[in-house]
């Protein structure tokens, strides 16, 4: 399949945006999942609702809220601009939008894994002299690795497909913020763009299928490693 330069650009941008969206939000997702699974604190229901909000809200609303907060005049946007960080209408903004939309899925997958990890094993580790940090690194983390992996794959898939919040927050600038879904949408708006759109649709299918197969294989390997199969 021969792709035109702007189609390549859309694919490369989508991969870059999704990669950074997952890598940067994973540690925070792990922390939030752990808090929700293991800790009792005031405002836990509120945090839970806040995390899941992007899943329920129309993506356009999420995108618009991001624009209000992270735009040049927004409270966070203005603050970040002082350090030369601009998110609105940049690929970094697309990564932020993708991260926020994928966040609930990641938190949910990791939280389920943490809830399934037996706290009795951590208690056993404590009697062997392991402090809280060592227990997390040497016991909990390896046990929940499949859940973290599943969360990352879900987050990546969501990021690859994110459209509504992205186009609202960072628009649809070729080479800058035009991800795969935005490009498909753009090609469908111009006469004679169907062929390009179709090629990108095929590409999306290919990437999605590849991601599912790779994650299945990784999950199996990890499960074998931690002795669950």
């Amino acid at each position, binding site marked *: 399949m021969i792709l035109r330069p702007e189609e390549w650009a859309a694919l490369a941008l989508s991969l870059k945006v999704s990669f950074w969206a997952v890598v940067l939000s994973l540690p925070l997702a792990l922390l939030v999942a752990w808090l929700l699974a293991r800790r009792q604190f005031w405002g836990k229901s509120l945090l839970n609702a806040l995390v899941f909000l992007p899943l329920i809200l129309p993506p356009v609303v999420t995108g618009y809220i991001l624009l209000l907060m992270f735009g040049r005049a927004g409270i966070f946007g203005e603050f970040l601009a002082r350090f030369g960080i601009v998110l609105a209408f940049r690929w970094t903004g697309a990564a932020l939008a993708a991260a926020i939309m994928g966040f609930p899925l990641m938190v949910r997958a990791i939280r389920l894994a943490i809830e399934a990890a037996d706290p009795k094993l951590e208690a056993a580790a404590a*009697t062997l002299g392991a402090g809280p940090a060592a227990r997390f690194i040497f016991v909990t983390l390896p046990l929940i690795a499949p859940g973290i992996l599943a969360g990352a794959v879900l987050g990546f898939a969501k990021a690859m497909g994110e459209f509504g919040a992205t186009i609202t927050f960072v628009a649809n600038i070729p080479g800058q913020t035009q991800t795969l879904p935005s490009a498909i949408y753009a090609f469908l708006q111009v006469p004679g763009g169907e062929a390009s759109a179709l090629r990108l649709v095929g590409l999306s299918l290919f990437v999605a299928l590849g991601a599912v197969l790779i994650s299945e294989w990784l999950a199996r390997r990890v499960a074998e490693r931690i002795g669950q199969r």
Partner: protein
Amino acid sequence: MSLEVTITHITGDFELDVSFRTGSGVTAIFGPSGSGKSSITNAISGLINPLSGRIMLNETVLYDATSGLNSAPHKRRIGYVFQDGRLFPHLSVEGNIRFGLRFAKVGGNLDEVVQMLGLEPLLSRRPNTLSGGEKQRVALARALLSQPRLLLMDEPLAALDEPRKDEILPYLERLRDRAKIPIVYVSHSVAEVARLADDLIVLQGGKIVMSGPTEDVLSDPAAMPFVGVREAGSILRAKVLEHGSDGLCRLQISGGELVLPGVVTGVGKTIRIRILAQDILLSLEHPIGLSSRNILPVQVTAIKLGDGPGAAVSLRCGSDRLLARVTAQAAEELGIKPGLDCFAILKATAVPRGNIGEKLSEN
């Protein structure tokens, strides 16, 4: 070496209120399920915080409700062998037993522990491929290598079937006799307690009802309601004199000699034998024309009538104590009362192999 525990704890409508002190060797906490045994070990290890009280190990305060002092579990250096093993599924056997090494200040001798528990062939295996008995041996090695000051064992054999128990008991005896750390052993099995424990604490409904050296507690007629009439019995220490060609072994006890089958320990060594109260007959005269070879002169020290038709008779045999169970009717007809001299008769085949344990060191 001493552990001092005085705690109260409430979970639901169950109330635990105990106070005891243990020394070196094995102290067993014996009681039915739900009597609070695990709550005690969990409190000692710091996995639960008792409502009130104080826990001290070798003059160090681990927990004191009054002053609010509470040492974290990972700082207490108390090894714990759980009933369900709790091996880490993501690590090999070797990874499991090495786990505590990185946190211990002094390195434990891995090879020695591996050899003592016979783990060489298992080192590269995964926990999910091990049998129940193998898992418990690995859990034991893992706890030992973390260099604990005290070892807690919570029903380590309860999840195993009888052949597996017999397979692991010799390892526990070896551990008791070689490891220089005190052990608190929780169990609801009289057979295990009789074989392993130096001291015994009997727990009932969250309270200590009896305590003392295992021999004394088990041969006390008052223990019968707690251990059950079929399980009640006494423990004797015997020296192996001679192995006969017919498979019988001559043993020296303080009050005479015994002839028993099923002894595998070498000549000159000391063993522990548990003799069930229901396997002993009493006779006023030295019997003649009787098939039993084991006839011991004894003196009645106490008699206790139960609610049912039975009576528990405590006997002195040399410096040992024996417990016999006879019917109350027979006790009355024979005129059994404290001070009476009579003879205890034991059938040689009445002592199963599982009730004969090794005792490598004298204490």
